[in-house]
């Protein structure tokens, strides 16, 4: 029973593990906001897996830890505090739980072990050029031919597609049904003939996202998760699972702490007196907000554990914390901006400035803008909140 769990002892164990077992070069990547690619994530996932901690949120029989929600939250918090990569992969946190809930026994046997060990890497093919916030309007079509689907269309913003093995993909299997009902969920191997992947350059200069073109790609019907036409439900289930993502403000607090150190380092002396005072105050305001969010996060976890409804808390946390994250990144930008912003250029490009020490603060600021766009944009969250508040 959860009453017997000693959460503080658990926290100590996790911390000891993180500090001794997470390789310094991996932690350095996190601490300096460098790109978290499969190359960085995989070895760490492997270490966790071998320790039995490969999938904190999964049931024990499939390799999970059996931890309760509070333990999982502590785990995520400590990982952030120790600069370990967030254990947030599309396989582990997204499609894995969907397969566990709705997949066939064969699909579980086939896909879960690779996710758990990190051998197989996943990406999410939801968004399309014409379907962003209004995802249900997606048009990539899957036409049935015998025991195969033939998939035709385009996905975009697909994070990690260039380093992934599989893409879980929402496709339209019926044009007759209402928007949400004609959608199915397919598991598509990215080496299938007919798939081409093109990088999209983002303002932070790194390669995260891609366009994925599907030209008559043949996918076995056995790779459909659940019912034909059930894709929207499974997609929503997935979002439900991730609703408490905003409850973990540890990464934001960690970034805030680092930014505070940056101010002390960067802004000594009379020349920067006003700048330092102003930035310190902005950071303090951000800290106040994060502490408020942290308290709400604890409330949310307590609510789930006691079986009470979460109400608007997930939206409030997502909306609030994403903006505060951006504020913190902006403070750091303003601290180094005069010196470093002019030297910022795409990291992939050759040239001496790409390596300027501290340039990651500028890069991190650029990347931070996405926080209010993906995962349900701020405007979409406000629509959700207002609908509840106004009763319609």
């Amino acid at each position, binding site marked *: 029973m959860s009453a017997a769990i000693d959460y503080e002892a658990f926290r100590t164990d996790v911390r000891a593990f993180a500090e001794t077992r997470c390789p310094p070069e991996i932690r350095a990547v996190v601490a300096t906001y460098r790109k978290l690619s499969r190359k960085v994530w995989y070895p760490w996932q492997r270490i966790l897996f071998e320790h039995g901690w490969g999938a904190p949120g999964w049931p024990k029989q499939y390799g999970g830890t059996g931890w309760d929600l509070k333990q999982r939250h502590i785990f995520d918090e400590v990982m952030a505090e120790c600069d370990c990569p967030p254990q947030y992969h599309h396989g582990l946190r997204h499609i894995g739980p969907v397969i566990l809930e709705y997949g066939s026994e064969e699909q579980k046997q086939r896909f879960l072990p690779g996710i758990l060990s990190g051998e197989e890497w996943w990406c999410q093919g939801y968004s399309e050029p014409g379907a962003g916030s209004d995802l249900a309007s997606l048009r990539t079509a899957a036409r049935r031919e015998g025991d195969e689907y033939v998939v035709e269309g385009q996905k975009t913003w697909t994070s990690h597609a260039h380093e992934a093995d599989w893409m879980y993909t929402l496709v339209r299997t019926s044009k007759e049904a209402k928007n949400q009902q004609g959608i199915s969920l397919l598991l598509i191997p990215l080496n299938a003939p007919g798939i081409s992947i093109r990088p999209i350059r983002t303002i932070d200069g790194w390669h995260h996202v891609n366009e994925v073109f599907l030209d008559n790609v043949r996918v076995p019907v056995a790779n459909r998760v659940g019912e034909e036409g059930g894709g929207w439900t499974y997609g929503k289930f997935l979002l439900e699972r991730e609703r408490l993502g905003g409850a973990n403000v540890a990464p934001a607090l960690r970034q805030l702490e680092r930014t505070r150190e940056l101010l002390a380092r960067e802004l000594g002396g009379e020349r920067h007196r006003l700048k330092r005072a102003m930035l310190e105050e902005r950071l303090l305001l951000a800290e106040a*907000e994060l502490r408020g969010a942290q308290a709400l996060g604890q409330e949310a976890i307590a609510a789930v554990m006691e079986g009470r409804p979460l109400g608007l808390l997930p939206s409030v946390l997502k909306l609030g914390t994403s903006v505060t994250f951006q504020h913190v990144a902006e403070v750091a930008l303003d601290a180094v901006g005069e010196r470093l912003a002019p030297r910022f250029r795409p990291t992939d490009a050759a040239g001496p400035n790409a390596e300027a020490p501290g340039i990651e603060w500028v890069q991190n600021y650029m990347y931070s803008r996405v926080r209010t766009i993906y995962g349900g944009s701020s405007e979409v969250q406000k629509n959700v909140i207002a609908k509840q508040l106004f009763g319609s």
Partner: protein
Amino acid sequence: MPFTATPIVGGDAFDQACRIGQEADRQLALIDDPAGHLACLRRHWDSLAGLGWLAVAMPEEAGGAGGTLSDLAALAGGAGRGGLPLPIAAACGVIPRLLADQPALLPGLAEGQHRIAFIPAEAAVDDAADVLILASDGSLTGAVVGIETPPDPTHLLLVLGGAEPALLLLPARARGIEARHYLRIDGRPAADWRFTGLAVEPAWVLGRGEVVARRAAEARDLGALLTCVEAVSAAGALLEQTIDYLLNRVQFGVPLASHQALRHRVAEMYVEYENLRGLVLQALRMAAADDGMPWRDIAFAKLRLGEAGRFIAQSAIQCHGGMGMTEALPAIRLARRIMMAEFEFGDRTFHAQRLLDAGRSAA
């Protein structure tokens, strides 16, 4: 069903305080003259003293209810929601805490005959030369302004800061004290006090030294925390009333609530409200776990109250259009109250300064 706010600490005391607050607010809205206003406040003061509010946090040995911070939070929350324009944080929390070791005074305080105005060491002055000084001959000079008071104050509880901290309890009508009484924009009684060589009798000095400074700072933090509870609760009610107004006011042939610009503004108010509520909950939790005041949590909450409270109040005014500039609606009276809470028990820069100083000395 449109939004209804959940109290931070609910229960009978909350409901009672809210009812009294709403009643006072309704009555006051119909009274034009300051004297009538004060008389009405005095009636409510006497009745809440009769209900035992002032004794809630006093020790049982002294005839109090021996209540906890949570009991105080219920009262402050209810008063905030109802819009009661009386200094609940000071009267029920700060002053009983500072007088806890003065058994002779407590009965009069509990019954409401001693109506004490609290003058903190940080009280505002118009002029640097006005800072209060207790000379070695025992005479007090100086002037403080904008001090919130109960109706018809009988005493002043005064904290002197500086090198020689002291806690004084002065009879309000002693010679050498001049008062100018008035009503604040949120309908609360207040006064400016000038001391012109007031001869402080030894019996009026309740304490001296570092211990006074420490206890006064803790009492101020309690005041700040209760003010936050009150303001969050007022903000919850303000959100409800703003939503109600937007649902009912029709322009361009549709309710204002159908416009996304206004819906988003309300969603933003809600996010600020929730965040502030989280901080206040956290500070209350920490305070309950420990004897002292969790000053850091309280400072963060009060800092956020400055930011979030003002955003909520201003947004509510904006959403009400011209009506937002009038005194006619309870919602706008709540908005004014929330704006004033910023300036009680340390404004946002006061608390920011404390946090920054503590961070620097730790570094």
